[in-house]
């Protein structure tokens, strides 16, 4: 039988090359979508993990501060803890290399602790490392990239503080851990503290625990002796933290990528179905010659296996290329939004290939399942006799429809029961929806085509035929509808989010000019605005008021959030925060405002206390109001600077907002400030500019979803082509009859265009309807559950119409080749069994 399989394969490929090629294309794109997203997802964290291993490779646990600063006094206490084999202090800071608009991850280490650093070259002059001001070791990769050589100097800044670094050595972190950030830069801890004005401060203490000691005991002892001011984390916990940070982002991409694969599965379904139709006599004959059920099934399974394998073989490199093409955008998101390491290079571990192969084969197998079962149910006589499959779908359409409606209903019940409180709910609802679409498709196609009144042999005749060939057409239409629903849903969600963000920015960005520093984006609280700079800003004649902002990450109930102290002295009508609940902070000290994501995640409402870990124990602040917040899914809260100082100590300001006198051109003031503070590393942006940039970051973040949307559309449109080719081949007798009855080639061509157009139209309409539901699920369930923010629905009608036209056009294009094939069927093709 295996011999027969290979013998038959050749004939089959010869007979249906275009079919095979199209389904291969579909599966490949599906696999590519999943592969590219998974590669990106995998690598989004691997830079963090790589850098973590590179820096803290030997550490069993890492201690980080929860307070605005981690005092170096902690270090000897860690060192003296029983069971600790070694401990090394780390000073970490992301600094901006000034002219390059590019950051370096500076790690200040104590060279006299047992830390492993991968020095390049025979030796490093330690006295220079300690004694030469600004001495830093950078990775050779970065040095090559930037053309740096030993002895080169570069100016960096953190906050308004500038420092000059000297390349003193190369430390090849990538050699030990290839995915480590290339931006790691090592210097002596004393130099780092001194250069960046952070005497007495550490950011991390890495600890190695004796092997024969219970790690848990030591961690418990460390936690006990160091108190709530610090977090004691194992590398696994740190990876988990980073992973949690990205989880929502990654999960959404994964879900979208699987839709592509799902749509690809439909293609396999169609092509298996087609091959079954084509080979039924062959199978019947084989059975009559004594081949068992299982053997005939084996032939079919062999085909699908081959398709799956080839799909994986083509999809993998394709996916890699897609990942490579999009890695920069994702990397920008990962660094800008999540403050993790940039993705320097893509690495694909060996197990990943197995996984991708499994996913490809599985989806191909799933696609082939139904037709194969159909084959299984047929006896020899039925196979040899006329094929009655077609009518079956039509007969079952009402039942399938009810089932589909039932699934949607189930989704509705789920929403009613758990709403956005249970994270997986959104995905289950989306899945139910996507499963329901193919089920309701046949009846809807029947209904829609049944409404058509045909009076001529043309487009409409072709469309009407769709309803009569449901077995073949409904699958492709369903695939298209699923893809369209995803496109419509995601497009609507992204557009709604963008619109919401734009309105929010409009409301929130009220000051005329904003001043922060280049390092602010990554270094946050460590990027300090020098008081003298604020004075200069305040002295500008057009400046009416200066609002200061101090920000650091704080913890509540184990959750890290962005905590800000503000002046909150803005004039009454200039409420800087759009309120969801409660009122503004007001002049009275002591209260706190909480952003929506934090409130949702911690189930807080106005009147509750937000309990923050403080240096002297928990600080409970009453919540005055909850504001819309789209700045970070981590969550945010703010209070008066005075309140913050009272509980967390005085601290420097990170940015200021300037209110200008009425009628002053803020761009002009920006230019003036830039000129007068030219030598200070500052980011001075007008109100308008900051809005633009926020939307730019937004667009960058969602750019990757565009790729996914187009990938599944591509597959769906391929499905249209595939189906029409199947129809052209399967129904050649019918076409021959038309020719015999005097239909011209052009007429048949038009009939097929009509079929393509009809499939597209039904797919678009059905997909748009489902897309609306999909958009609601994304907006009201998924986003709320994962990110905790309210998105206001905005229908991007123009964009949706435009997209629909593109899909329509693409479908018509995809119909051209099948229509040509169909039009070439000669009248002599008439054979009795085919009608």
């Amino acid at each position, binding site marked *: 039988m295996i011999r027969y399989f290979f013998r038959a394969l050749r004939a089959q490929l010869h007979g249906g090359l275009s079919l095979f090629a199209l389904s291969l294309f579909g599966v490949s794109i599906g696999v590519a979508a999943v592969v590219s997203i998974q590669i990106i997802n995998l690598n989004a964290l691997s830079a963090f993990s790589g850098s973590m291993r590179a820096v803290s490779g030997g550490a069993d646990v890492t201690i980080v501060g929860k307070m605005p600063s981690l005092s170096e006094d902690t270090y000897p206490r860690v060192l003296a803890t029983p069971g600790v*084999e070694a401990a090394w202090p780390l000073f970490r800071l992301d600094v901006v290399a000034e002219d390059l608009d590019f950051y370096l991850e500076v790690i200040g280490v104590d060279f006299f602790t047992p830390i492993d*650093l991968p020095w390049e070259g025979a030796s490093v002059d330690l006295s220079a490392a*300690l004694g030469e001001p600004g001495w830093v070791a950078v990775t050779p990769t970065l040095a090559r990239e930037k053309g740096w050589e030993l002895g080169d100097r570069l100016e960096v800044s953190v906050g308004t503080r500038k420092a000059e670094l000297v390349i003193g050595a190369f430390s090849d972190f990538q050699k030990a851990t290839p995915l480590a950030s290339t931006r790691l830069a090592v210097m002596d801890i004393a130099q780092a503290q001194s250069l960046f004005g952070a005497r*007495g401060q550490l950011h991390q203490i890495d600890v190695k625990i004796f092997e024969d000691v219970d790690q848990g005991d030591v961690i418990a002892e460390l936690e006990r002796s160091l108190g709530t001011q610090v977090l004691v984390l194992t590398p696994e916990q740190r990876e988990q933290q980073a992973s949690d940070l990205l989880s929502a982002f990654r999960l959404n991409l994964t879900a979208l990528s699987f839709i592509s694969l799902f749509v690809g599965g439909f293609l396999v379904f169609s092509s298996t179905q087609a091959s079954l139709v084509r080979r039924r006599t062959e199978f019947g004959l084989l059975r009559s010659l004594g081949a068992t059920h299982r053997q005939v099934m084996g032939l079919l399974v062999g085909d699908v296996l081959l398709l799956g394998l080839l799909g994986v073989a083509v999809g993998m490199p394709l996916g890699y290329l897609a990942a490579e093409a999009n890695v920069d955008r994702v990397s920008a998101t990962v660094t800008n939004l999540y403050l993790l390491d940039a993705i320097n290079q893509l690495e694909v571990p060996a197990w990943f290939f197995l996984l991708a192969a499994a996913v490809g084969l599985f989806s191909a197998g799933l696609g082939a399942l139904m037709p194969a079962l159909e084959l299984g149910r047929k006896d020899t006589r039925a196979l040899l006799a006329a094929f009655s499959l077609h009518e079956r779908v039509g007969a079952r359409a009402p039942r399938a429809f009810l089932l589909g409606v039932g699934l949607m209903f189930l989704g509705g019940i789920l929403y009613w029961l758990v709403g956005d409180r249970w994270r997986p709910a959104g995905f289950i609802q989306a899945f139910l929806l996507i499963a329901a679409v193919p089920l309701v498709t046949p009846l809807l196609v029947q209904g829609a085509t049944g409404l058509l009144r045909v009076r001529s042999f043309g487009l409409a005749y072709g469309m009407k035929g769709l309803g009569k060939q449901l077995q073949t057409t409904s699958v492709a239409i369903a695939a298209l509808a699923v893809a369209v629903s995803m496109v419509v849903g995601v497009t609507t969600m992204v557009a709604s989010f963008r619109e919401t963000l734009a309105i929010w920015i409009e409301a929130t960005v009220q000051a005329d000019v904003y001043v922060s520093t280049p390092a602010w984006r990554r270094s946050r609280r460590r990027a300090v605005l020098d008081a003298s700079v604020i004075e200069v800003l305040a002295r500008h004649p057009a400046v009416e008021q200066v609002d200061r902002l101090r920000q650091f990450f704080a913890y509540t109930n184990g959750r890290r959030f962005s905590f800000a102290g503000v002046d909150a002295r803005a004039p009454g009508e200039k409420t800087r925060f759009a309120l969801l609940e409660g009122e503004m902070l007001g002049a009275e000290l002591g209260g706190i405002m909480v952003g929506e994501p934090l409130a949702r995640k911690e189930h807080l409402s106005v009147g509750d206390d937000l309990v923050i870990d403080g240096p002297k124990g928990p600080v409970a602040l009453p919540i005055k109001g909850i504001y819309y917040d789209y700045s970070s899914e981590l969550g945010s809260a703010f209070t008066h600077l005075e309140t913050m100082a009272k509980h967390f100590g005085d601290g420097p300001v990170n940015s200021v907002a300037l209110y200008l006198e009425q009628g002053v051109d803020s761009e002009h003031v920006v230019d003036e400030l830039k000129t007068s503070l030219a030598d200070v590393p500052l980011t001075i942006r007008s109100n308008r500019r900051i809005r633009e940039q926020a939307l730019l970051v937004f667009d960058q973040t969602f750019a990757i979803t565009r790729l996914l949307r187009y990938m599944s559309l591509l597959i769906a449109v391929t499905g249209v082509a595939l189906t029409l080719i199947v129809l052209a081949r399967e129904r050649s007798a019918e076409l021959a009859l038309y020719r015999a009855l005097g239909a011209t080639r052009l007429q048949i061509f038009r009939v097929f265009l009509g079929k393509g157009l009809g499939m597209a139209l039904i797919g678009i309409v059905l997909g748009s309807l489902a897309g609306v539901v999909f958009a609601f699920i994304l907006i009201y369930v998924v986003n709320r559950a994962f990110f905790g923010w309210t998105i206001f629905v905005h229908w991007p009608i123009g964009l949706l119409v435009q997209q629909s036209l593109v899909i329509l056009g693409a479908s018509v294009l995809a119909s051209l080749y099948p229509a040509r094939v169909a039009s070439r069927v000669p009248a002599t093709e008439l054979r009795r069994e085919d009608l």
Partner: protein
Amino acid sequence: MLRALAITALVLMPPVEEWRVAVPDYAWSFPRDHWAHDGYRTEWWYFTGHLEGGGRRFGYQFTFFRIGIVSEPIELALDSDWASSHVIMGHAAVTDLESGQHVFSEVLYREMPLLASFDHDSEERIGWSRGPAGTKALWTLDFTGDGFRIAARDDRLEMGFELTTRAAKPRIFQGPGGFSRKGKESGAASQYYSYTRLETSGELTMGGERFEVVGESWMDKEFSSSQLEPQQVGWDWFSLQLDDGRELMLYIMRREDGTTDYAKGTVVSPDGEARYLELEDFSFEATRYWVSPSTGARYPVAWRVRVPSEGLELEVRALVDDQENKSRFFGGVYYWEGAVTISVTGLGGEALGRGFVELTGYGEGNRPPV
């Protein structure tokens, strides 16, 4: 990797000219000279001794090394507590002379307020450091006026001691004027003095058990900026306390092939007079070797030592073969520092005294600790 780095760095330190060098006419000033001398690259306080208590006998070693990293103090140039020109290395070892158990502990810290420092202003405290990781107690070195107080502890190894020493004999200079040459080059020398007999008492912990102990110690203090000459691979150093009241110090700088490159010695009479020995004034030969199972180094552990001018022909034997100190911090840093007993050749092995021997530069890829 840093281990390798630190070692490399220690070797590749700035040219010697930037540091002060040992001179024959150094103007000694005590007690100030017991404290640290920052201008020199290396300095050490070395205590070794034999102790008894609870019916047990112990050998111990306590050393603080000060190693200059940069010759110009950078503490003032940088706004950080971590700014430091020196590192402190501490070595402590105890040998249970009955069971033969030898325990070695070490610390290495940069000199900074949180971790370790050499005091310059204190009347008592010469230096201190944090204990090794996992140990709360500090390691300290104090001057008491008539001796020194030392303390070291390693909770993990269940070892430690707090000892008070009192000079039983006066301080002597090693080499005329405390100028001790280590090679033929003029720079190869140190400022060097010793207390050859210190009455010692205090507490000692070994294997978690505490003992009240008494005994005798030897203290060496050296500072210099020189290093081994290229042909020298290490040294053998003897500090022997004879029961007749004399003390003998000998050192031999060895070449790669085991031959002697340079040697000096000092004999201290019972009344504290020092007489300096040249290479030709003494001889010694190894009579037995021991191979370390952990480093593979082959150390001599018994010697025949002759000082004809003093009428001495001594059999010197290690009380325990395995008294090797192996650094955890620095790969390739290991040496033998052990308690020895002395008998007179031909007198049936009757004990004639005791002492300590230090052997460095044995084994493949070995480097001296300083």
